């Protein structure tokens, strides 16, 4: 792999990761994206899912995100994540709590649009549970 990608993973509370990597897979709301160095500028929203960070010669590191944004500029990739935990620390109980939370959101939603959005989130979380 020729060009390295500078990758920042930030949550509202702190900067989680800032380093040179070879590839990052990002769970975009319209499909997963693999981003490498020299990618065209993109701005995308994220669905709940897993971010994979690949550095050559090292095992892939995976993080769970609850949603957020990804921004690719010529300078690199920035992920503004809403809530992030390393996948190894995410267990069934935590995921179940996330799902319960999402179900609550569906029940609470006031407008149709909000309900639909909450429902999508819930479905994505359930899909994620199947996948792990």
């Amino acid at each position, binding site marked *: 792999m020729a060009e390295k990608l500078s990758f*920042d993973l*930030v*949550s*509202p*509370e*702190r*900067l989680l990761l800032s380093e040179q990597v070879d590839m990052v897979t990002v769970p*975009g*709301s*319209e499909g997963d994206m693999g981003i490498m160095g020299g990618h*065209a*500028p*993109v*701005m*995308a*929203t994220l669905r709940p899912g897993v971010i994979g960070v690949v550095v050559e010669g090292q095992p892939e590191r995976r993080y769970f995100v609850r949603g*957020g*944004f990804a*921004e690719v*500029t*010529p*300078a690199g990739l*920035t992920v*503004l994540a*809403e809530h992030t935990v390393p996948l190894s620390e995410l267990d069934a109980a935590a995921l179940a709590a996330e799902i319960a939370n999402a179900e609550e959101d569906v029940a609470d939603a*006031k*407008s149709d649009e909000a309900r639909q959005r909450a429902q999508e989130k819930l479905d994505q979380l359930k899909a994620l549970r199947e996948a792990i």
Partner: protein
Amino acid sequence: MASLKDLRNRIASVKATQKITKAMQMVAAAKLRRAQEAAEAARPYAERMDRVMANLATGMAGRDDAPKLLAGTGSDQVQLVIVATADRGLCGGFNSSISRLARQHINRLIGEGKDVKILTVGRKGRDLLKRDFASRIVKSYEFTGLRQIGFAQAEDISKTVLDMFEAGEFDVATLFYSKFVNVVSQVPTAQQLIPASLPEGAEGVDLGGAVYEYEPEESEILKELLPRNLSVQIFRALLENVAGEYGAKMSAMDNATRNAGDMIKKLNITYNRSRQAQITKELIEIISGAEAL
């Protein structure tokens, strides 16, 4: 003239007070450091959020389909005033200067015939505004039991605000908090949250001629981004407030400790003088008694 015993008690009590204020000052200093670290750690996210916002919003600003959170409802009749203060007192003029600014703003709006609703964050702000505007306070938040304010609390508040906005309960929201300049100086500040004011000085990144690809569409992203931005702004304000509170408390307690020290010095002098006076008086009585014989 107070008796010697009274003076002794007085000195002891001032000394006890001094010990307390000294301890409070040290606690505030330690907490201030933590609060500053938290504020620093939150900065990268807020900075990048500003940048993304600037990129998106400049493109959307003039368009008709711009979301209401950005463009406003077209009216400013109903105003929501969010006042963020500390939960505790004993921090100098910190709380009162925030609520003074808020009160001026509220009175001006009322004078203009606007409808004002108030949301308070922090116990002191509620207490201070309750006297004048009790009927206008729609909701109050307190975080007294909490060790450290997290993003979850900010999200909580912003959710309430968004729900109210979507229900059409207000048109414009303004947030009052204290900007942390440095340890001795906190500036009460007003910031307009809805419609979103664009971050100043944040410029879009130079893409070298390339154009952003949006996924999903620009307006969809903005729809997600704006509520998030609201939480981030509130979170930032809360963190600055916490740092400011401890900074103010530190200098207030430092002053109190010094005042107590001065007072002890003065009381000690008075005590010594009156003790000396009493001894002299007794001596005179003995001598004049002996001379009379």
